């Protein structure tokens, strides 16, 4: 028996070692770093106080929150509409449409930023075309700014929203609709009083995932605006691995704040999923496999959508 146990432990040892070395220890190192100041020893909250009072860091936090909230809301809005539309198609067409939408989710990060530069950058194809055609509506648009970032973020949010939301529509039974219409409810009234409340856990859960996804997105923003736009993820990157002076303690502090926000969002999502199960509706793609991190996680979601 003793030897049996030893064999089992031996099989587990490398795994425990790797997780400790590359996951647990770094997390604690980051946490301890955030409570330490660069010039004095011992525990201190100075970094947090500094992060929350400095106008510069607050701007980064505010920009990140704003862009995440806005792009998630737009993503969920468009996702809801398209998810409803997609349920109206025959299954074969539906699967093909979903496959196309998932395919585009591979196109994220640096290549995505690059595609947008080709299309709408300073010398982008459309930029030049619009100029030639004299369409001044787009004259004020600048890809390397707030509006450009929103556009690109929304692009990678929509396929994810669609994928997470469309199964929820299958939780709405045809009978409910018939019952509602027998009782005299119109289409709009049905969605207001029955449809949307049933969908609401899925909607809030998806919002959480999209929010976390946008908060953590680094590659797209970094490739598009570099250090020119003050975003939390990009700021952390330059504080820790920048070309100029690095401030690992400050970077750790901001990283802890960022992690708190995404953990909270994912937690919200998990709560909502549990609620959905209570409804007996189908859960939007098993959450633990698809909770948002960066856009590079999406292949996991893609697998879910397979027939």
């Amino acid at each position: 028996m003793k030897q049996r146990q030893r064999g089992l432990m031996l099989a587990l040892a490398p795994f425990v070692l790797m997780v400790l070395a590359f996951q647990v220890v770094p997390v604690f190192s980051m946490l301890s770093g955030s409570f330490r100041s660069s010039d004095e020893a011992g525990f201190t909250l100075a970094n947090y106080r500094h992060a929350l009072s400095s106008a510069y860091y607050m701007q980064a936090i505010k920009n990140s929150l704003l862009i995440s909230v806005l792009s998630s809301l737009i993503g969920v809005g468009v996702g809801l509409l398209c998810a409803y539309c997609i349920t109206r198609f025959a299954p074969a067409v539906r699967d093909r449409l979903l496959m196309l939408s998932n395919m585009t989710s591979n196109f994220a990060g640096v290549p995505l930023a690059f595609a947008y530069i080709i299309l709408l950058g300073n010398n982008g194809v459309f930029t030049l075309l619009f100029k030639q055609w004299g369409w001044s509506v787009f004259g004020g648009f600048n890809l390397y700014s707030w509006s450009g970032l929103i556009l690109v973020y929304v692009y990678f949010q929509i396929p994810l929203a669609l994928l997470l939301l469309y199964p929820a529509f299958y939780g709405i039974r045809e009978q409910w609709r018939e019952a509602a219409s027998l009782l005299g409810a119109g289409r709009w009234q049905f969605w207001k009083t029955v449809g949307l409340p049933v969908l609401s856990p899925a909607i809030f859960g998806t919002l959480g995932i999209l929010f976390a996804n946008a908060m953590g997105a680094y590659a797209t923003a970094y490739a598009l605006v570099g250090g020119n736009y003050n975003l939390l993820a990009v700021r952390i990157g330059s504080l820790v691995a920048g070309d100029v002076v690095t401030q690992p303690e400050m970077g750790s502090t901001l990283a802890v704040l960022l992690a708190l926000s995404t953990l909270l969002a994912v937690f919200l999502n998990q709560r909502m999923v549990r609620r959905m199960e209570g409804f007996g509706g189908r859960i939007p793609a098993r959450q633990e496999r698809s909770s948002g991190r960066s856009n590079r996680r999406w292949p996991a979601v893609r697998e879910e959508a397979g027939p």
Partner: protein
Amino acid sequence: MNTRKAGFAPRTFMLLLMVYLLLPLLATGLYAFAQDWQNTLLPRSWTLSWFSDMFRDIRFLEALWTSLYLCIISVLLSLAVMLPAVFVITVYFPRWESFMKGIVVLPYAVPGVVAAVGLIRTYSSGPFDISGTAYLLVGAYFVVILPYMYQGIRNSLLSVSAVELLNAAELLGARRRTAFVNVILPNIWPGVMVSALLSFSVLFGEFVLTNMLVGGHIQTIQVYLYQRVGESGHLASAIAISYFVFILLLSAVLMKLGMKIKGQAK
């Protein structure tokens, strides 16, 4: 919900969505084949020279090779470590599974930037100074693909009823290691292949950790692409589109494999 023929509104919305989603891809593709594209809706003349330039570019080939071998080594390492560990946990210590779930969900919920901060702090000084080396990157990659590997292996084990299989093998006199290698492994292999390929495609597209941990020292395909964005647009789009096609082929293989497994299960 009924699924009769889609009406006018759903068709229009889906068409708009597809145009929106596919436009950047299409533009990148056209740009990669275009010789001269300015002030017109479509390129005026076409060429394959950007692709031939790409394959003559030593830095590109080196970056491609670096990406391939780093991803393959990481996936192999993960297989070697995870297969026995997940097997032991699923079969002998099912009570630890909720704890495992916590460990495995963490890389999802915590963005890459945050993970990089901790890794840099831990390994840039002190007894383990491996900053900027491939060792650090492979370790970081191991954590990135942890969720995919764990879920994939665990699901395969459960779907072939590993516990019963193992009992049967031991009843017939096989030793535990023999049973694992000769009975369990061949049965879960297709499922494990799917998660290995999936992990590979995730790592192939990884940029945040690579750039922050080893950006200055090791060039993967993503880092190379990033550096190229500012230079020749045509060459970079040829690379971007090749990358995309490669990932697409990989996911097609994945889907075929996944369907095959599902077909067998039925």
